[in-house]
């Protein structure tokens, strides 16, 4: 079994659109949407939920007003300014470190596990999809992503499915690290803008640090062909496997409006470019050793 994760650094470069096409081109894969705080893949794949479970992340503190003597011990120990002057815990700031609970001389602090969101195993026209919804203003997205990956690996083993394709989150922080750590390969989708290139270099640094083989492709490559060339040069100098360019095409938005992946919506050159990238990614993955799981 192999795990391919699509990331970008910069947001809005086309991760979800590419993942949707890959999901439809792969005939035997499990799809994860790991962008848990702004998930969009379900808008295209229209999954039918088979199993739904609560996700409880960390715990948070709560002060019982009737027991609290306003001694301020909690305010003194809290390193996150999460206790207000009227001795109420600010749930958004609380990190769940438990210090107020430990140091309250009156035992006025309750410390309990929080429900941070929901996760789902679904069926879609592209196969099994594992996805989630992080609650509003909740944290622990990295923990939730790790859970989704464990569930996908379990399902892949049970059903003998050889590939997991993950739609990753933007950035380089905790949910990205949770998405890619230990994966077989990442595919970086970027765009020919100075911002896109800057952000791609940072995620490349991350995949190097975590020792994950990386490939890349350039979306809307014809917006600025000079920067496209510069990105391609950077890729070849830094051992990034180049998979192909995708032209700027309003069909991508039209496909999204029609709730379809590009390869389902259109048969044009852009769709062909995406199919080539899929084929090249498959060849790259085939050249990697299978992990023992």
């Amino acid at each position: 079994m192999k795990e391919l994760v699509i990331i970008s650094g910069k947001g809005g470069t086309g991760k979800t659109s590419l993942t949707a096409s890959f999901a439809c081109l792969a005939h035997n894969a499990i799809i994860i949407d790991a962008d848990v705080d702004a998930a969009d893949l379900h808008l295209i794949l229209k999954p039918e939920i088979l199993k739904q479970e609560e996700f409880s992340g960390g715990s948070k503190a709560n002060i019982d007003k009737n027991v609290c003597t306003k001694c301020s011990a909690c305010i003194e120990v809290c390193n996150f300014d999460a206790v207000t002057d009227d001795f109420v815990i600010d749930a958004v700031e609380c990190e769940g470190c438990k210090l107020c609970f430990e140091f309250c001389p009156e035992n006025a602090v309750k410390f309990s596990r929080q429900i941070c969101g929901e996760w789902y195993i679904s069926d879609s026209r592209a196969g099994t999809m594992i996805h989630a919804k992080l609650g509003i203003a909740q944290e622990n997205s990295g923990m939730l992503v790790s859970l989704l990956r464990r569930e996908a690996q379990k399902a892949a083993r049970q059903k003998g499915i050889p590939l997991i394709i993950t739609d990753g989150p933007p950035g380089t922080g905790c949910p990205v690290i949770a998405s890619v750590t230990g994966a077989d390969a990442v595919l970086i989708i970027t765009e020919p803008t100075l911002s896109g290139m800057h952000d791609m270099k940072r995620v490349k640094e991350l995949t190097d640090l975590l020792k994950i083989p990386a490939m890349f492709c350039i979306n809307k490559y014809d917006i600025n062909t000079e920067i496209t060339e510069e990105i391609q040069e950077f890729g070849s100098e830094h051992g990034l496997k180049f998979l192909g360019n995708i032209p700027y095409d309003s069909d991508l938005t039209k496909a999204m409006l029609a709730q379809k992946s590009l390869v389902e919506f259109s048969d044009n050159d852009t769709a062909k470019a995406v199919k080539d990238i899929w084929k090249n990614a498959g060849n790259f993955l085939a050249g990697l050793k299978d992990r023992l799981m």
Partner: protein
Amino acid sequence: MIITIASGKGGTGKTTVSTSLALSLEQKVCLVDCDVEEPNAHIFFNIQESGKEIVNTFVPFVEKEKCNLCGACEDLCQFNAIAKIGKSVMVFPEMCHSCKGCMMVCEQDAIKEADRELGVIEHAQIDNIELVFGKLRVGEPMSPPLIKRVKKKIKSAGINIIDAPPGTSCPAISAMRDSDFVVLVTEPTPFGLNDLILAVEVVRLLKIPFGIVINRCDAGDNRTKKYAEKQGIPILLELADKRKIAEAYSRGEPVVHAMPEMKKEFNDLYHRIVNSKLKNVN
């Protein structure tokens, strides 16, 4: 006043709006890039000289000679950042949330303060704009502590514009908190609308007045506008989908330099923000 430019979905135009707004105002402006995982605002400025400071956070360091392996630190730590393994106590710095609890509960006084680098904060002055931005160390999982440190550079007086990270979880919330107004930048596509609705829920939870900017307003459908109207959310600005804007953006040229006539639109945006804030729309 602190105006935060945010969005649920990435790549909708936060940096375009925040840099254009800063460059369109006559007043002194502090532009604060809080998208520390992927900061991009500085790309749009010709920076000759910048100041740099490294930002660290607390992690524990265990003095072996003093430690009696009682395990109190491990019992307390909620983040699995410190653990007794065999005959020593190991620290996992990247898991540590810097609450300092291990230090407080250690009766042997065996835990000392050490550092983990979060990243750097850079600042530069470009005409009337003071630019401040954070850059998260690659490999560092937690961005909110650096975002909070970047925000400490904000001056209470004058106009402060924050460029926020995408999403609706802790990094975005750390950037938006304590703002006077939030501008949510979106695009009229199904992804844009889905993530806008999530972002609106967050801003409402934080009780901050807000409005939206629809970028590439002619590129999708009218569902975003209908949603805004139904919810009574002010549409502060609509930007057309122009190749000239995309090209300027691609080479790091501010949109208001490539198309100076757009300065007026961003000036109007500022005045609409001030008026909406006075009306306290939420």
